[in-house]
């Protein structure tokens, strides 16, 4: 046994000498996978256009990532899955009626401007997919608020357009919604399954919850942001949501409609743009919830999840800075 011979080949590095097998690309692809059920439901309700819009987003995201990395002479990192995930999330946040240029331009804004110009993966301040959507919403407000009726998806080009439940709520109040959906029970059922107008991936609450539960089970996200976000929305909707006075709002309606579930489980929990500490995440979630309800009830837009998350993204570094995790041994001293 030539032990000595081996010596030259020994690798000398500093500790630790072992790593677990988690990688960034595995995280990205797993999150993408968890969006699959919601996407399938979106395709079921909104038809081939859903696939078309999402595919354009993903292509646009890949192209933008490639372009900027090529131009800046960086390593091309298309296979880490982050561009794919951004494209997919963006697609799921667009209405299925979006004309071809919306997915393309907004995915460029999302990946090239929001992410790559700020330094690439890990350095962006804002959630790229949401900035892409915000850009599209402000730039093409009409196209971005034209919703196809879910049942008309397979009929063809002359799909009927309709309003989202939150838009109806804002315009006509609770009676109007119940008038349209029948009764409260069928309203809730429709919302839960996703049989309503909206962005193509945000409608099916059930499918989104399956994906969210999968992510929590895989420990890729924790309960902190989604639960504090949803709880705040529910509480605030109950207190301030009603037109008859305090404590008359319908929290269930607010929870099930809009992009709330998609936002709370998949957008607000974006690693890069949310706080890293648990306390910070709870504050972040509560902030998102408050802003969402504020926008839904008081501002011009019927839905506020997107702007709420983007606004809270600004505060993430600040929250992290002030909510440093409790250093072992210091905690007790501070309490005394």
């Amino acid at each position: 046994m030539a032990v000595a011979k081996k010596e030259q080949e020994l690798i000398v590095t500093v500790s630790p000498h072992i790593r677990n097998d988690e990688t960034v690309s595995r995280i990205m692809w797993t999150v993408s996978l968890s969006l699959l059920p919601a996407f399938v439901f979106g395709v079921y309700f909104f038809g081939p256009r859903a696939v078309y819009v999402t595919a354009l987003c993903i292509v646009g995201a890949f192209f933008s990532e490639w372009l900027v990395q090529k131009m800046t002479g960086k390593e091309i990192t298309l296979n880490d899955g982050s561009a794919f995930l951004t494209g997919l999330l963006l697609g799921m946040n667009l209405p299925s009626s979006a004309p071809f240029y919306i997915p393309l331009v907004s995915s460029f804004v999302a990946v090239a401007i929001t992410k790559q110009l700020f330094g690439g993966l890990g350095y962006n301040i804002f959630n790229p997919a949401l900035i892409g959507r915000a850009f599209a919403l402000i730039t093409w407000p009409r196209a971005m608020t034209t919703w196809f009726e879910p049942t008309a998806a397979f009929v063809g080009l002359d799909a009927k357009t309709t309003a989202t439940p939150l838009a109806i709520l804002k315009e006509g109040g609770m009676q109007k919604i119940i008038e349209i959906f029948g009764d409260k029970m069928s309203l809730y059922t429709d919302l839960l399954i996703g049989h309503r107008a909206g962005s193509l991936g945000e409608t099916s609450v059930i499918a989104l919850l399956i994906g969210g539960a999968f992510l929590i089970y895989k420990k890729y996200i924790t309960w902190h942001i989604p639960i504090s976000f949803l709880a705040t929305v529910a509480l605030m909707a109950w207190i301030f949501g009603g037109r008859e006075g305090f404590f008359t709002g319908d929290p269930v309606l607010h929870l099930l409609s809009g992009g709330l579930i998609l936002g709370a489980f998949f957008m607000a929990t974006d690693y890069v743009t949310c706080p890293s500490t648990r306390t910070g995440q709870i504050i972040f979630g509560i902030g998102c919830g408050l802003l969402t309800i504020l926008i839904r009830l008081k501002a011009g837009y019927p839905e506020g999840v997107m702007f709420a998350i983007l606004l809270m993204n600004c505060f993430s570094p600040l929250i992290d800075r002030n909510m440093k995790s409790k250093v072992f041994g210091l905690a007790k001293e501070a309490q005394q």
Partner: protein
Amino acid sequence: MSHQHQEKVSYWAIVKNGIIKENTIFRLVISLCPAIAVTNSVKNGFLLGAAVVFVQAMVNSTVALLRNFIHPRIRIPIFMLIISGWVTVVDMLMAAYARAAYKEIGLYIQIIVAFASILARAEVFASKNKVGASFFDGLGSGLGFLVALVTISFFRELLGKGTLIGFTIVPVKPMLIMILPAGGFLVTGLLMGFFNWIDMRFYGGKGAGGAGGH
């Protein structure tokens, strides 16, 4: 960078310096508020730029004329007095003789008083140089501001309204965000990046850096 220009420096060089090397918006990065606020159409950008050229040239000349008379302790208040005086003059003249233009940008004329660029030129150049040089420096930096505003508004109007100076180029409204404030930030930032890139690529990045201001 020294502003103690000698006599031999030509007036043209001073003007060019103001337009390119020390461009208010793209190089010195000051007076960004108006660069974003009024640039949603080329017409507005040009009008405000023109007003600034006039105010800057007059302020610089006045400051240079009085530079040996002003006590250094109170120079900033005196500069402000001179600036606000000239701005008021422009405001009243426009209100009386250029009604159409005044209706468009009258609101912004009065805030020229608060432009950092004007006070900055008065302080760094006019208070140390002769009247002639100062006048041309004011002209140059005013023109630089004008050029920047027109450049920004060119892209914003074209992308946001599909028009240029009011004439329709593209028959649809392509990107609404461009004529909103957000578009102002985007275009200004991207242009700034573009000019920085040119500077680094072709001139080795020797241009002036700058600090923000409004």
